[in-house]
């Protein structure tokens, strides 16, 4: 046991040293932390495996399995997604016009640059909901930047490697953001719980909210731009006790089929 004790002490020292190095290096360059370097190396391998798998999958389904139907289906899906996104945007614009918001902030019209990235890997377990994308610090990404698709908000960048980044999805239990009901402008906090359904918190019992209502980003918090679709209310329950409603929300994005994403390259001072 004496030998084991010595070993435990030795390993504790190693951990301590790693922790110290991490903190020290963290001040120098975020992507050169031990986890950033590990992510860079492992994500490169994941990228190769994912691309190969996609290649094989694409070859198989593209050439052997309903060649024309698949392509047409993809086009129709894209068109439908765009139409849905346009509809949400139009409704949002209509409501904004009705409230006679004439004082437009022209700075908002200057959209920050956006780059596209591919999802190369998911989380290795069910507890956390993150993905790794093939864009990193060298592509201009910074922690906290919002990640979206044409269907709505996806999450935000939480960890960087030189060519890869880890994105915390909206459905992760550590994720929460300010949300607003498009129809009634009721606000709440949309929080994930590491399942496919999110929870809208802090909505008062007397607030106007029904199943089917669409949730959008409120723009508060400064991470996501205003008006991005977040999801649809699928359950509203009035509890016997307490001030708030229990609201379940199905996210607008299908996180199980996430392949391409857009990263809004906001400057760090904007986040």
């Amino acid at each position, binding site marked *: 046991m004496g030998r084991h004790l010595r*070993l435990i002490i030795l390993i504790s020292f190693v951990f301590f040293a790693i922790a110290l190095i991490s903190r020290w290096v963290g001040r120098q360059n975020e992507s050169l932390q031990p*986890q950033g370097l590990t992510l860079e190396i492992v994500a490169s391998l994941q990228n190769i495996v994912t691309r190969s798998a996609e290649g094989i999958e694409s070859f198989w389904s593209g050439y052997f399995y309903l060649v024309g139907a698949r392509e047409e289906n993809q086009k129709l899906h894209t068109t439908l997604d765009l139409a849905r996104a346009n509809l949400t945007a139009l409704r949002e614009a209509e409501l904004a016009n009705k409230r006679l918001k004439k004082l437009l902030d022209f700075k908002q019209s200057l959209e920050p640059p956006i780059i596209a990235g591919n999802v190369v*890997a998911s989380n290795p*377990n*069910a507890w956390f909901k993150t993905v790794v994308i093939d864009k990193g610090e060298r592509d201009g990404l910074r922690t906290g930047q919002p990640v979206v698709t044409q269907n709505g908000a996806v999450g935000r960048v939480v960890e960087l490697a030189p060519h890869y980044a880890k994105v915390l999805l909206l459905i992760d239990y550590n994720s929460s953001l300010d949300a607003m009901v498009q129809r009634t402008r009721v606000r709440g906090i949309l929080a994930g719980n590491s*399942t496919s359904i999110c929870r809208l918190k802090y909505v008062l019992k007397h607030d106007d909210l029904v199943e089917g209502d669409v949730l959008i980003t409120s723009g508060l918090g400064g991470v996501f731009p205003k008006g991005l679709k977040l999801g649809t209310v699928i359950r509203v329950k009035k509890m016997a006790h307490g001030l708030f409603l229990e609201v379940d929300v199905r996210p607008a994005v299908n996180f199980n089929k996430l392949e391409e994403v857009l990263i809004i390259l906001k400057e760090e001072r904007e986040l």
Partner: protein
Amino acid sequence: METQAKAGFLTVKEALGYFFFGLLFLILKTTIWMRIDPEYFGPDLLLILITYLGLSAPFITGSILAVCLGFICDTLSGGPLGLFTTIYLIIFWLVVMIRQDFDPASPFYQILVTLLLAALSVSMVWGFLSLYDRGFEPSLMLRKHFFLIAQGISVLVTGFISPVFFWFFQRLRLPEAQRKEQEA
């Protein structure tokens, strides 16, 4: 089932081999496997590997392998850094402590031990997150029965397929004569 190789000795080649298999399991799980099983019903192959190492690897080499693989798992997952490093290290140490008390070549014991350790691993993640992660709300997760069912199935699958992987890991070891030569 073959007799297990002597616990307490691993050649460098074997140690590196197990490390790369662990890495391969993680890469396949986060890429191809997730396309098939997005709800995580699948087995925890890394836990099977750590259990096997606990039965057959020396304390220091096994601990280092558990730490390295746990660290990579932490890097790829979105949880607190050190969570899986700690859990896999504890699991390895637990197996080392009990390895004298049962027959490592028996599939029954392999299933039993892996099943218990897989359940323990889930409980430890739950416990650590409840204690140290403010954002973790156990009550919310408990309401989602699907999550718990998926975890339960994953534990069972991990336990019941473990003999196949134990056999496979055993096959990766060098022939006894070569091992004795290297050990000498």
